[in-house]
């Protein structure tokens, strides 16, 4: 940890203000209040690398700053990107400060710090950069994710990933190294997921094919059912592994239904009039089943999974959006993840319809509904056939279907659209 004098602290605060602007930190009109908390010198000299933690309006910001000699030629991983943050003067003189993760020469040095592997990791390319994390790929050998905003405790997504890996769940990019300091996760290195395409993109491919014809989804060449079934199996395995890793609890189905009812009443009361809902809810209440709850993914859906040559993978275990403080590691019925996935089936069917017929997507509703229904069924067939899932969801298949349907309505109320609309 570096000791900072006042000048240095002031300079870093100014640089962090620029950094925060580039990372979605400045909200509202007022200047963010920035307090430098820690500075770790990862690489000394020029080029040098500083790892900076700062309090920004109560949130924990994490910047990896590169110090370069002014005038030096620098290549960035993203062309046209202004990764230069400003100038900084220290004992070595004036330095140009850049985002080290976007610097093709400095990013491998950060990787080396995390992995302890100083070998040449090969060419670096930028895979993703948003406020939940920046991910770099190194010649398909390593994938480095660095979190710009930190939890003041272990990152729940990292925790989930590591637990799944240790439980033997192999449908994910295996963690290679974790970057941790002071009980916080700063980043991690994974094996890259070769040949991956997002589940959302694959579903869109199927829907484009469907909408281009006028037949039912089972007759379309791009039928998604076999993929949905395999996705169900993968999801089932994920839940069995999560139960193995974190254990199980229980909740009363009636209590959960109360929450759903309240949410529907608050968000969109018209959904309470959904045909058949009252009967289904009554049946669920009467059954009085206690639901097994486990640590779930928490933000599941086609966007969070990827198709590879090895089958379906969980591509993203970082639920909760771009900032810490969102969804926490709560225990829920695994059927909540299933409902999230089904809700994404609905969203993608709608998105594809809007893409094809922006002004008349209603003409595709019947096909969309058929596609959703077919793939929900296929998903459940795979999910419920997974070894070990029987202990985590109600034994009555009808109850499973009804419960997931009700939970999906809750998603519709929260997000302003209705399944099947």
């Amino acid at each position: 940890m570096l000791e900072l004098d006042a000048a240095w602290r002031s300079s870093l605060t100014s640089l962090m203000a620029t950094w925060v602007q580039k990372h979605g930190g400045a909200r509202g009109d007022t200047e963010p209040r920035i307090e430098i908390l820690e500075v770790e010198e990862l690489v000394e000299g020029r080029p040098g690398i500083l790892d900076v933690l700062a309090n920004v309006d109560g949130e924990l910001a994490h910047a990896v700053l590169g110090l370069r000699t002014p005038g030096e030629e620098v290549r960035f991983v993203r062309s046209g990107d202004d990764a230069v943050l400003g100038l900084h003067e220290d004992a070595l003189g004036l330095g140009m400060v850049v985002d080290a993760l976007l610097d093709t020469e400095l990013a491998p040095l950060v990787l080396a710090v995390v992995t302890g592997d100083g070998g040449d990791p090969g060419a670096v390319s930028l895979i993703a950069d948003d406020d939940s994390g920046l991910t770099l790929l190194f010649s398909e050998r390593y994938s480095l994710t660095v979190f710009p905003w930190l939890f003041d405790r272990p990152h729940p997504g990292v925790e989930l990933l590591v637990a799944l890996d240790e439980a033997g769940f192999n449908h994910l990019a295996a963690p290679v190294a974790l970057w941790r300091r002071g009980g916080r996760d700063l980043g991690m290195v994974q094996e890259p997921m070769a040949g991956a395409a997002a589940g959302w993109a694959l579903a869109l491919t199927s829907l484009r094919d469907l909408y281009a014809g006028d037949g039912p989804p089972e007759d379309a060449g791009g039928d998604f059912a076999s993929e949905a079934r395999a996705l169900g199996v993968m999801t089932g395995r994920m839940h069995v592994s999560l139960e193995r890793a974190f254990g199980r609890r229980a909740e009363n189905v009636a209590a959960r239904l109360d929450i759903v009812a309240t949410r529907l009443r608050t968000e969109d009361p018209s959904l309470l009039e959904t045909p058949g809902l009252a009967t289904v809810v009554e049946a669920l209440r009467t059954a009085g089943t206690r639901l097994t709850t486990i640590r779930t993914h928490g933000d599941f859906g086609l966007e969070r999974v990827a198709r590879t040559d090895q089958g379906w993978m969980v591509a993203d275990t970082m639920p909760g959006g771009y900032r810490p403080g969102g969804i926490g590691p709560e225990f829920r019925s695994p059927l909540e993840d299933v409902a999230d996935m089904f809700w994404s089936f609905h969203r993608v069917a709608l998105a594809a319809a809007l893409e094809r017929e922006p002004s008349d997507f209603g003409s595709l509703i019947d096909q969309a509904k058929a596609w959703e229904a077919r793939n929900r069924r296929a998903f459940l067939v795979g999910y419920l056939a997974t070894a070990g899932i029987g202990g985590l969801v109600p034994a009555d298949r009808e109850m499973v279907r009804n419960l997931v349907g009700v939970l999906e309505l809750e998603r519709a109320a929260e997000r302003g659209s209705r399944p099947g609309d």
Partner: protein
Amino acid sequence: MTTVPTPLNRGDGPQDPSSTWFQHAVFYEVLIRGFYDSNDDGTGDLRGLREKLDYLEWLGIDCLWLLPFYPSPFRDGGYDISDFFNVHPDYGTLGELVGLLEDAHRRGIRVIADLVMNHTSDQHPWFIESRSSRDNPKADWFVWNDDDQRWPEARVVFTDVERSNWTWDDTRQQYYWHRFYSHQPDLNYENPEVADTMVDLVRFWLDLGFDGFRLDAVPYLFQADGTAGEHLPETHAFIRRIRKQLEADYPGRILLAEANGWPSDVADYFGNGDECHLCFHFPLMPRLFMAVRREQRYPITEILSQTPELPPGCQWATFLRNHDELTLEQVSDEDRDYLFAEYAKDPRMKRHMGIGRRLAPLLDGNRRLAELLYSLLLSLPGSPVIYYGDELLMGDNIYLGDRDSVRTPMQWSPDRNGGFSRADFAQLYLPPLMDPVYGFAAVNVEAQQRNPGSFLHWMRQLLIQRRSLPILGDGAMEILDCPNPSVLGFVRTGVVDDVTSTSTAWRGWHGDEPETGLGWGQWGWAATAGAAEAAARPPSRTQAALCVHNLSRFAQPAELLLSRWSGYMPVEVLGRVPFPVIGEDPYTVTLGPYGYMWFELFEPSDDEEAAGM
């Protein structure tokens, strides 16, 4: 515009004299009976095939694979052989066969023969003698048993026709073993006389000049209690024995195994490079068809990821269609149902455990899709095998029995009988196609040769481009990450002879037409002003090709992670058009519906060469 077919002028002898020629070769599977009838008797023959060598040379294939030409009662398309050491009289004589081989070799075309080692026809004198009693000299040349209960683990291959692998023989009062039709008794390889005779058979045909064999039904040669009777160690030992003969006395000749199985199992037939030179990659073929219907690459990339590394000096043989049904043995029940639903909507299209259709009707006549599939076939690892007539997008006749649906006469011209034969129509071994879409009036060699925009010309150009990229034969393959699931991109790399690899770039930029007298096969450019430059180059260099395919019927963007090729310049192979230099960012290519592109990647220092300067 009329294009006069001009031979590629490849000169005498094999084009590629190396012992690994088969790794770069394009094979052409030909049914002699259906290719060309030279004597007007309604059946194609050896002299007819010889007369059409001009065409095959022009097309640019490297090796002919002759379907069985042996005497046969033809109850299984000639795979029921009644004399292994002769030519069926309908096809000609041994002398005519030798003439065909010599003429083909003069044109740089090799020839391999189908060799059915597992069984004979029940009309073969060996079987007639064997079944006559239990103590005749050939009594143990076939597999006999008192009951039909032995080897229950062995599956029945043709489940729609045969109920058992055993058939009762009234004369001998015993059951005989057959893995295929009951009229095809299996030879008994436990009998050393049989094994020795089959080795003599191999030598006989190699001495006549064949360049190798396609070994039919090779997994079934031996049986053993408690096994499925496939892929047994004794079978591999026998193949090694044949290979040893080839290595000792017939270098450069090859064995191509027909073993319909999972790649990891079939790879056993390569041995340690001491069994077969090539094995068919059966599971890839249905997955190519599946991928284009599903519009995603995963059926292809999954099977490739499960394909083991080849031993040195070996190669996969790949194909889209052949003389049999489009076999669906190597797919799951679910995928088989899917493929039947997509490609065999009429139940009459089904044959055994597959689909009895040719390429063009399978694709509903979609030329773009046919081009895409051939682009895949010719750029993915393996030596491609083209089935006769598929270079024209010939059709089929699903109303013909068994696999005759895809064995109709070659369509040479719009004349009587499609130019195949001047015999009376009723004399023809099978009726030629006469429907308005695929009939010989619409689809034939003559018309397509006259039309530079035809599929035939496109195919010929693709074969030329493939030859300019030898690494497509034996180069390593790296599948590229691409977020678009409908796009399959890969890079093939390897070390090639420098003259071979650069000449096409030169030719393209100097506007040299392949049909002109320069003769691209001779690399005539070396005699031009470029010769000095060529002489100064190192003898070999690394070649890299980027191949991108859109498996969707809609246009697609392809963002390819190519940063490891940063600084390289892709030059599109067909048009020699330079594309923007690859950088660190994902490389974007836009592909039309079922679009494909092949690029040669040139190092920064090669820019001038790529640009033809």
